[in-house]
């Protein structure tokens, strides 16, 4: 079946502009996660959604970052007033539920470059 998809695959934006990154999880997966991968920094947790529960936003680095998940499916990560330090690969993942046993399936990522 189809995996997790993300768009765009690459995004170049000017400092100060807003960007929106999209994630389509695997159909039927109720949990959705966003991570940021910076060179040499590993994966940094940003936010997760589980069904209709309130999302865990504790990993968002600043109030310029926000995310929504509409209809329990597609998610959008928004970065306002982008800064050069926001440049990274943004990865989305989904899992069947939020249960600890369930592995996460990752999308190919969106590479964001802020100039």
């Amino acid at each position, binding site marked *: 079946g189809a995996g997790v998809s993300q768009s765009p695959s690459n995004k170049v934006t000017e400092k100060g502009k807003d960007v929106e990154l999209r994630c389509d999880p695997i159909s039927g997966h109720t949990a959705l996660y966003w*991570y940021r991968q910076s060179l040499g920094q*590993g994966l940094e*947790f940003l936010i997760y959604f589980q069904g209709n529960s309130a999302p865990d936003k504790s990993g968002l680095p600043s109030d310029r970052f926000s995310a929504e998940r509409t209809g329990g499916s597609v998610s959008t990560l928004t970065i306002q007033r982008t800064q050069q330090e926001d440049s990274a690969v943004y990865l989305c993942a989904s899992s069947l539920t*939020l249960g*600890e*046993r369930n*592995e*996460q*399936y990752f*999308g190919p990522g969106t590479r964001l470059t802020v100039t």
Partner: protein
Amino acid sequence: AQSVAQPEDQVNVAEGNPLTVKCTYSVSGNPYLFWYVQYPNRGLQFLLKYITGDNLVKGSYGFEAEFNKSQTSFHLKKPSALVSDSALYFCAVRATYGNNRLAFGKGNQVVVIP
């Protein structure tokens, strides 16, 4: 909070030789442990996981990992490395209770030399 250490930035191994990628973890209570692999310009792919039961876990592409509770380790192994195994490998841990975050290590670059 849970955390993972992958002490080596890069692991070089000759093709056909055994491959080991080290991982140690810290978590309250019992851990759920995962290994993921990332090929160039691709997302992370799930390799294997330890939940409970046998300490030796077998996964995709001939990889296996051994859970060692006393050493808080979950090293990834492959008996005979292939050039195609060259990639970035991430270890991750999750607590059995408490917050639902999956904590990742910084990753190990594996280079298999022909």
